[in-house]
């Protein structure tokens, strides 16, 4: 799998993670008739103070992956090593302590904040949960600092969420995540629900915070342009597997998996003169049923390069290009490992 260089460098190391959801039939006496293999043997690692972007479409499992790392969905098997410690083996108290180190920035600025709490209470709740402030003054002061950190006016702390705009609410969510001084942030579509003109503000904020506090990000999104902008490395997911993972420029310039190529090609570029010259690489068909997975390579029903081999063998991630100077590697899960330009 992804070979590790310096363990000190690696913040998060996920190995063969699987998260399956059982599907039951019947109401009183339930019978398990299948499983949704949301995350199906995923391995990757993230170096400290860098950003790994996770892209994919519906059903690819990227959101479930983020939630599995936080143990909001209990993984079925695999290992999640945070700073070398396998968090799947931790007990209740240790997991609670871990929640100070790994935090999540949620996607829904409307739903992710309790509408009945003031902004200050929302941001300060983790401080209370983890008893991080000794005095009331310290608590107030910390909240003020957090508000300023995310670009909000501290005197708005006693307002209710509905009095804030979408972008401001997202800042509140970020402030809440930062309150416990985490090292690692999982950002699950943090800007998708925002207006285009506000997205840039939040993206810039996240970048500034990363630089200032040496944060590590797992940035999950379906918006390729945003992911390419903010990430260092990008992993492409399809139906529960990572199909390709590489440095962002390498991935864009030399995509090797047909799905990656289709994904990048589907994103229109805001420049008609460039668009006129582009030949869109459009794949037909849709994502298959997650309960009834296609045999072999899950992508084979839609792949324009499909062969008999693809229907029978499951491809694994293989190293296909390596830039040792910059410590960058390019992995792809395809039986052909060809350079499709």
């Amino acid at each position, binding site marked *: 799998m992804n070979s590790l260089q310096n363990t000190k460098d690696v913040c998060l190391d996920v190995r063969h993670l699987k998260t399956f959801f059982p599907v039951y039939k019947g109401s009183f006496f339930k019978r398990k008739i299948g499983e949704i293999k949301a995350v199906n043997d995923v391995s990757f690692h993230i170096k400290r103070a860098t950003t790994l972007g996770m892209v994919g479409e519906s059903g690819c499992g990227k959101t479930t992956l983020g939630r599995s790392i936080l143990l909001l969905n209990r993984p079925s098997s695999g290992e999640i090593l945070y700073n070398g410690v396998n968090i799947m083996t931790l007990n209740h108290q240790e997991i609670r302590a871990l929640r100070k180190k790994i935090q999540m920035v949620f996607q829904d600025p409307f739903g992710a904040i309790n509408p009945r709490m003031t902004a200050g209470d929302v941001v300060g709740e983790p401080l209370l949960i983890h008893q991080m402030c000794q005095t009331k003054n310290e608590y107030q002061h910390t909240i003020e600092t957090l508000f300023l950190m995310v670009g909000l006016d501290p005197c708005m702390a006693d307002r209710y969420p509905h009095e804030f*705009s979408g972008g401001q609410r997202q800042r509140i969510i970020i402030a809440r995540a930062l309150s416990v001084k985490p090292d690692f942030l999982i950002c699950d579509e943090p800007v998708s629900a925002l207006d285009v003109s506000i997205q840039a503000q939040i993206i810039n904020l996240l970048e500034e915070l990363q630089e200032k506090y040496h944060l590590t990000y797992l940035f999950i999104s379906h918006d390729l342009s945003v992911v390419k902008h903010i990430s260092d490395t990008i992993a492409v997911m399809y139906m529960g597997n990572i199909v390709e993972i590489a440095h962002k420029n390498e991935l*864009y310039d030399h995509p090797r998996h047909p799905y990656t190529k289709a994904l990048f090609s589907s994103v229109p570029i805001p420049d008609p003169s460039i*668009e006129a010259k582009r030949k869109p690489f*459009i*794949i037909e068909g*849709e994502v298959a049923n997650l309960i009834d997975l296609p045999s072999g390579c899950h992508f084979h029903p839609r792949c324009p390069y499909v062969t008999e081999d693809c229907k029978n063998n499951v491809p694994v991630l293989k190293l296909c290009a390596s830039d040792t100077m910059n410590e960058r590697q390019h992995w792809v899960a395809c039986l052909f490992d060809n350079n499709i330009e």
Partner: protein
Amino acid sequence: MLIDVKNLSTHFVLSRGVLKAVDNISFSIDKGEILALVGESGSGKSVTALSLLRLIPNPPGKIISGEIVFEDKDLLKLNPEDMRHIRGNRIAMIFQEPMTSLHPILTIEKQVVEPLLHHKKIPRTKAMKACYQLMEKVHMSEPALRGKSYPHMLSGGMKQRSMIAMGLSCNPSLIIADEPTTALDVTIQAQLLELLKDLTQELGTSMLLITHDLGIVARYAHNVHVMYAGRIVEKASAQNLYARPRHPYTMALMASIPRIDQDSKKLAPVQGNPPDLLNLPKGCAFYPRCSKKQDQCMEHAPKLKPLSNNHEIACWMYE
């Protein structure tokens, strides 16, 4: 000119005040043209589309003034019966959320055939045949199976294809697509937009494409109108708009979106917050966020003036 909209204004009367969703806009669409209406939430683009088809809920909304000349008739002066004849027949609309736009307990074939039966008054067997031909035309896989299915059994892409089939069934002159692919995956989005483009070209249908995605506009639109706070602030061909954006809002917007083909430099966000449509500033609505504001921007709202060939702008910088 297929449709000519003059001085259209649509207001919503709320307990807290009057919301000027669309404020005195004028534009036109030619035969075979794809016009994109671009803006963010609150810009008034969706309300414009609904106003064209007179689908504004009354109360609290009302089209208070304007003229919509379509095929030599002013749509705002038509009686309800004639207007119904236009909807789905001469002008069709494709909505954003296919999940809520399809009837949940009618099969797909029943819904796709409905405009044909209602407007064209052809016998059912003939209509069904046409319906299945349409479903094939929109590249629906296994049309026979899909036709007998209910909407909840279909994926988002399939549902939207049904909507497109419905929209094109009566061969309308104009299709209004209101964010048709926003709720869909990006590869499905690409499939559907290519399909829409091919079909409209083939049938000679004009399209009013409403979106906030500047990439889609660049790829598919001939002409673009940028809306902000209920007004049109810039009109240009797609080429001109991207090559030489003039309005500070347009320029700020373009500078703030990350581009997949460019190396990441720091984004230049548009300052401030989206406008409060109940409390618009007296002069130019973009004034509070504009980096190039002048004194007169605060007092007087600028009007659209032609700048060069096929490029109009509403900004005091260019007066």
